[in-house]
């Protein structure tokens, strides 16, 4: 039986804050939307996140952060991905949590295609991922 190409998503929480309710809600919503969601738990270093993305060959990476350390940690995630030959441009990167408006533009320049703040509906995140998936190349090789 030939399998349809599943959307594989990594949901991770970099840094030291342990507030993972939002990450879990998003992980569950994407699962219920038919995606395969790898959830790594809290307190991940940028290297751990990049390793998981490499080994799991995910299409999408969603980072959740509430500690305020995103401008420090997110660039390190991008670098760690590049070091592992995972091209951030080929992966859909998005972020959620408490991220001030002023930081959105620099994060988008860094490669994050969307920032979802408090009050975002999970439907918005699901359709955002699905829209992107339609346009991605079909072969992983």
């Amino acid at each position, binding site marked *: *039986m*030939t*399998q*349809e*190409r*599943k959307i*594989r998503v990594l949901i991770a929480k970099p840094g030291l804050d342990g507030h993972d309710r939002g990450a879990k809600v998003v*992980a*569950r919503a*994407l*699962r*219920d*939307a*038919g*995606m*395969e*969601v*790898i*959830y*790594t*738990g809290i307190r991940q*270093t940028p*290297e*751990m996140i990049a*390793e*998981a993305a*490499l*080994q*799991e*060959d995910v299409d999408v990476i969603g980072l959740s952060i509430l500690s305020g350390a995103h401008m420090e940690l997110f660039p390190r995630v991008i670098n760690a991905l590049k070091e*592992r*030959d*995972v091209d951030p441009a080929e992966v859909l990167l998005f972020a959620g949590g408490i991220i001030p408006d002023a930081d959105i533009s620099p994060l988008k320049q860094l490669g994050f295609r969307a920032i979802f703040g408090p009050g975002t509906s999970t439907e918005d995140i699901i359709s955002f991922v699905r829209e992107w998936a339609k346009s991605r190349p079909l*072969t*992983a*090789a």
Partner: protein
Amino acid sequence: MSVDNLVARLLAGNRRALSRTLTLIENDTPEGRRAIALLYARSGKAHTVGLTGSAGSGKSTLSGALAKELRARGRTLGIVAIDPTSPFSQGALLGDRIRMQDLTSDPEVFLRSMATRGALGGLAPSTAGVVTALDAFGKDVVLVETVGAGQDEVEVARMADTTVVVLTPGSGDDVQAMKAGIMEIADVLVVNKSDLPYADLLSKQLAALVQQSPSGRPIPILRTSATQDEGIGALVDAIEEHRAYLQQAGVQQAHRRRQARHQLLALARQRLIDRVVAQQGADGLLEDLVGKVARREVDPHTAADQLIGG
């Protein structure tokens, strides 16, 4: 990039190429099948260890502890961790990495999460192919952790060299253990969470059962507490002793022949079904017969004959 190139990079030790190859194999694409064809002759060197047991028995935590011990002994590792696909949404939440945090920064450990994608039996449909790739990549040991298994999910034993069945205290009386299925596939039995009450009782019940085992080889029963890191060294010893036993003249060969037969027949069966469904589905015969069986006009056996006979 062509599959042949990708596989060449995999064989040169490139982890990104390994990861991409695993995706092609998991999606059962023509490229994935080509990759398996290129890799298969180079596989068969790794010790494949299956870990199975009921949901919540501590398989992931135990896998993590085993992996740490194997790394301490200098072995390189592939881990395939399987979690269930939802029969309703077809989505899956793959959470085994949470229990293996200590390993995730070790480049000699490659952990891949897989969803069952509708397969029964405790494995994902492409698990064997993924194991082949990790094996050909050069991993010394490939650990396969099944979904939380009930009594009848025995597929892992048809793929692994060594099957470890994980039990926990308080999970049923000795009649449960006498039932057929998962208890019979164990090469090594583990009483995990052995710090809990009734661990002694379970160990004794298992010991009594194993005495009655017809296979001849005594099945070791080990007590572990994965969270307390107890009993892990002895478990690795038992797993390695089983491998040594397999490597005795004739034993491993017979084991691998049984596995090859099973895998070959399973794949051939799937291809035949796909072919029949594609042909008769297009002709409308399939739906026609489905209706007749549902209305009790034709019995299922006769309908199946008609479906295959065309």
